[in-house]
């Protein structure tokens, strides 16, 4: 079947570029007060690489690829769990005048 312009490689590059624009649009609106939580929150999102790590570790056994995947799972989980938790802890402290 003719897929027209939807070449998978080009589509993924489209996705990448458009997401960068979305990121720029959203983040430029963030007030300086929230820069640190934003950073650690965004940081936790970059732990999305956990998705790739899980697949890599699912090979199982003692092959090198599986061991590398296992280490990646540990790293990425620290990033995700620690990142979201510490962001929440910080944000819970921001209060307005009572």
């Amino acid at each position, binding site marked *: 079947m003719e897929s027209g312009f939807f070449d998978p490689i080009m589509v993924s590059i489209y996705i990448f570029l458009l997401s960068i624009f979305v990121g720029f649009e*959203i983040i430029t609106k963030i007030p300086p*007060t929230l*820069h*640190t939580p934003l950073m650690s929150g965004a940081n936790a999102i970059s732990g999305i690489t956990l998705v790739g790590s899980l697949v*890599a570790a699912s090979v199982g056994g003692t092959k090198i690829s599986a061991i590398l995947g296992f280490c990646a*799972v*540990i790293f*990425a989980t620290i990033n995700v769990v620690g990142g979201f938790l510490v962001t929440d802890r910080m944000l819970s402290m921001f209060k307005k005048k009572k």
Partner: protein
Amino acid sequence: MVALLYLIAATLFILGLKGMTRVKTARFGNLTASSGMLLAIIATLIHIGKADYTLIVSGVVIGALIGTIAALKVEMTAMPEMVAIFNGFGGGASALVALSEIWFNIIENNSQLPAFKTTGTLWAATIILSILIGTVTFSGSVVAFLKLRGSIKGDPILLPGRHFINVALVLATILLGIYALFEVTVLTTLTTLALTISLTSLILGILLVIPIGGADMPVVISLLNSYSGLAAASTGFVLMNPILIISGALVGASGLILTQIMCKAMNRSLSNVLFGGFGAEVSEGVREYSNVKSFTPEEAALILESASKVIFVPGYGMAVAQAQHAVKELAELLESRGAKVLFAIHPVAGRMPGHMNVLLAEADVPYDKLIELDQANAEMVDTDVAIVVGANDVVNPAATKDSSSPIAGMPVIEVWNAATVMVIKRSLSPGFAGIKNELFEHDNTYMLFMDAKTALQEIIKELKS
């Protein structure tokens, strides 16, 4: 099904980030983003289906334990190094996934060589980027972490010929990577080269961050944050997984914007921060001070007693002295006496973007009392007392008055426009820029040569008695 769940997860990430643009909705935004992550994980597990889960489960348990303990135990003053090291783990994970891919698809599979014939050109090209960016993020973040903790000297460390070495390392990594995946037909050579480019990237990350010190840390942390996103995105290209591409791009963009804001706040270009070795070549200007007046806490309290408008200007010194609670106590005491109290926050005060805001939030200072640079300078004119707590370069008049100064043109908080300026600082030692601060000689400036916390506590005691 999996693709649909990924789409929902990506939407939740974007909505979560959008929520974080306002203080009111920020916590919910973070929750939204984390539920997006949970969804992405569930989708991936569905995709994996039946498999050996031993490594997955044990990896997640170990990682979650470490992450939880670290997140709950960290002191707010240590937040910059915490963010730095989390960043490093993210980047490291991306690089490890890329390496695992090489082993799984090529080396353990005994595939047809050169590798790109088995896996495609895009795979081969982006996997080199994944390893390079991911590993640089990892080792660079570890160095930033050690510097921020004080385990290695925070000062810039300059190697001779470092620009040449860095360029050589980038080129070597990319060229060896291309050679390994597009030319090499012997499996052992491929293995050796994969390890070699990991090593060159590791060294590159160290060399890139080692020369950057102290007050330039906010730029470095923002940039490493951006790299961790880009590493995830390039791993997304390797795996052809849209959720990684989208999230990686979002984080990459956010890190870049923060980097840009930080550079602007110092009136320096990114390349100047990265390659300048600022503050390392100690500028040999006049650093002798004359006509410096100092206050005892009693004298400071006397002035504050009759002040009706006070602005605090916190800097890295407040974080070091853990003085944020004392600042808040003094602020409340002054307010109870009818004074208006504000906090002027310079964008690069501290060691990461928003550092001061988090510390003051921890001390329960309402965030609507924190004002930004422009407003601070407008408010300063009818202010009775400006109290500088452990800040130096960000209140240096040379930035506006002396065009030959290294910090010329950097936006600063013009505390000297207040009727009285009190500077709480241990000594007259220069700040990160290594230059003299004429503010300390102004007629209306009074120094309190003390530890910030002690000074504030003694002022509070005097005011109460």
